[in-house]
């Protein structure tokens, strides 16, 4: 009912009052009418337009107190029904005067009053129970909504799982909630726990295994509220009493799991299990997506290496060169504190910087003597050819310029475009130094490798002319000797020959 009275109340509320009036007539033998606070009749006998009754109802409404006045044949009474501080309804009736009837009425009405109060008390406790159940439903809905919001944000898998476990734990009031992902194809496994798991987290995999083995065709999850009765579970941990375990479905046949452990107030039931399953399902999608993406990255890298090796392998002198340049670029980039995604990119650039040499005739590539001007012109095309090849690969556009400009020099005397200073992208400057460094420190068709002290002096001499001082500083900080030793210790997997004696 609205605060302003029920004149505007929907018909269904008037209907309820009409039914109530009928019940009162049956039980108490009195005709009750219901009125608006201003006296207008809402429910009542058609002939109830008694002016004095209406006046009485208005008085009751205003004072907020029961009102009565004698009338011929009995008593007129009006009872205001209040909500909060306002009268929203007035009931009125003509009561009998004769003693016996009045006595019976008194007994009946006191009885009614008591019963009504009891019913009200019961209604209150029902409301309380309903509120508690509703509150729990709100928590679950909020959890699922919150997870939905967070799933579309790029984040490490561990962080997502941690948040999911924490929210689930709070929602279920469990002692601990854990998530487990088994290791798969070179990617390590992950175990995440919110709360205190009553056993070592290394026990989680065997627990998952045991439970997974026990999963029949009938059920896709496990609830066990008496774990100590299962000898295998009891063996894993004496402290687990109640358990919900839900598989986290990943690739074919590979399942992780989400587990909720121990809740003191009540056993776990299907609503809890369904909630865990819902959260686990969302997490599984996220994890699988993440792993697919990483697979894709790995695939691309493997393909690039294979491609590059096929070019490098033509010439025993340059065999492994691209991989060494790539590794050097990566270490220099890390030393220069470039962000991780750039470090990865520059590794790729190092691998692919000489891909244009596929367009250079072999007799020029393998010539032992000095190149004549025409031969020099042809081989100097390789950055341009390489960049052109890369321009056809959408995902490699970010390294195209590194390949194109890796022979540019700070003083503008490089090729193909004679760029100067800041006009040369950082990636290109790093590749340029790494390329020159490897060229000087390896055997070439036209000369053997140069001594390290000479190489260091040559590089220093050319800072500002050919090389960027920051890149050079990074290379020297890593230690040229250490770099070369690394290559001696682990030669390129593709090339059989050891280039550095």
């Amino acid at each position: 009912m609205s605060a302003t009275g029920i004149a505007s109340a929907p018909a269904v509320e008037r209907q309820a009052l009409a039914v109530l009036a009928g019940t009162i007539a049956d039980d108490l033998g009195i005709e009750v009418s219901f009125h608006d606070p201003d006296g207008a009749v809402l429910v009542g006998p058609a002939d109830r337009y008694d002016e004095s009754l209406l006046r009485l109802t208005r008085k009751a409404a205003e004072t907020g107190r029961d009102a009565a006045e004698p009338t011929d044949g009995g008593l007129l009474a009006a009872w205001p029904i209040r909500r909060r501080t306002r009268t929203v309804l007035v009931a009125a009736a003509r009561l009998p005067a004769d003693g016996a009837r009045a006595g019976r009425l008194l007994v009946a009405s006191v009885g009614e009053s008591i019963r009504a109060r009891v019913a009200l008390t019961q209604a209150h406790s029902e409301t309380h129970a309903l509120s508690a159940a509703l509150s729990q439903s709100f928590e679950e809905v909020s959890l699922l909504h919150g997870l939905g919001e967070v799933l579309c944000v790029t984040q490490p898998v561990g962080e997502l799982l941690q948040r999911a476990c924490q929210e689930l734990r709070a929602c279920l009031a469990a002692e601990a909630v854990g998530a487990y992902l088994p290791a798969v194809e070179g990617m390590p496994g992950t175990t995440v726990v919110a709360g205190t798991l009553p056993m070592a987290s290394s026990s989680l995999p065997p627990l998952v295994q045991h439970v997974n083995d026990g999963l029949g065709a009938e059920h896709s999850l496990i609830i066990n509220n008496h774990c100590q009765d299962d000898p295998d579970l009891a063996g894993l941990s004496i402290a687990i009493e109640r358990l919900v375990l839900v598989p986290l479905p990943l690739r074919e046949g590979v399942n992780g799991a989400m587990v909720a452990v121990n809740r003191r107030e009540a056993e776990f039931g299907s609503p809890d299990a369904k909630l865990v399953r819902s959260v686990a399902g969302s997490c599984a999608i996220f994890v699988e997506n993440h792993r697919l993406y990483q697979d894709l990255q790995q695939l691309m890298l493997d393909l690039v290496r294979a491609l590059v090796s096929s070019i490098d392998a033509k010439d025993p002198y340059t065999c492994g060169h691209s991989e060494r340049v790539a590794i050097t670029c990566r270490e220099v980039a890390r030393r220069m504190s470039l962000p991780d995604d750039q470090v990865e990119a520059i590794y790729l650039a190092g691998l692919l910087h000489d891909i244009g040499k596929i367009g250079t005739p072999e007799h020029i590539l393998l010539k032992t003597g000095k190149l004549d001007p025409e031969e020099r012109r042809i081989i100097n095309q390789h950055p341009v050819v390489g960049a052109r090849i890369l321009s056809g690969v959408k995902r490699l556009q970010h390294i195209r310029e590194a390949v194109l400009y890796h022979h540019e020099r700070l003083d503008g005397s490089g090729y193909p475009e004679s760029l100067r200073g800041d006009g040369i992208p950082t990636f290109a400057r790093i590749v340029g130094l790494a390329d020159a460094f490897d060229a000087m420190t390896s055997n070439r068709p036209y000369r053997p490798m140069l001594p390290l002290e000479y190489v260091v002096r040559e590089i220093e001499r050319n800072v500002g002319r050919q090389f960027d001082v920051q890149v050079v500083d990074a290379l020297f900080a890593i230690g040229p000797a250490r770099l070369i030793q690394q290559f001696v210790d682990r030669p390129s997997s593709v090339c059989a020959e050891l280039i550095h004696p």
Partner: protein
Amino acid sequence: MSTPKILVADDEAPIANVVAMKLRNAGFEVIVAMDGQEAYERAVAERPDFIITDLQMPGMNGLEMCTRLMAEMGGGVPAILLTAKGFEVDSSAIGNLPIRRVMTKPFSPRELLALVRESLSEPQADGSNTGGGP
């Protein structure tokens, strides 16, 4: 320090009941109002430390109620707006009203309780502090 008093205003009984129950279980004293006018009157009479109010209510809406309270009591009472219209309310509608946060329905009662506790332990504009409460 006396028990903090919280006014909850919402014309939907289920919501009002859930919020009141959560807060009472946490030890707060709770007054419930079912419309804006009643909420205003009871706030003036009983000076709550905090208000949790719906936006759309018969008579006066939640923002109007807060505005009138601010005019009547200077400074106003810190409040949380808890409403199905949460995504449509922007900062211009709130202006300089002391509304600490707008929460959208459905909400987490746990989160609401945490927010109330956090807000009650923040220093007020006048430098005073209502204290942490239960």
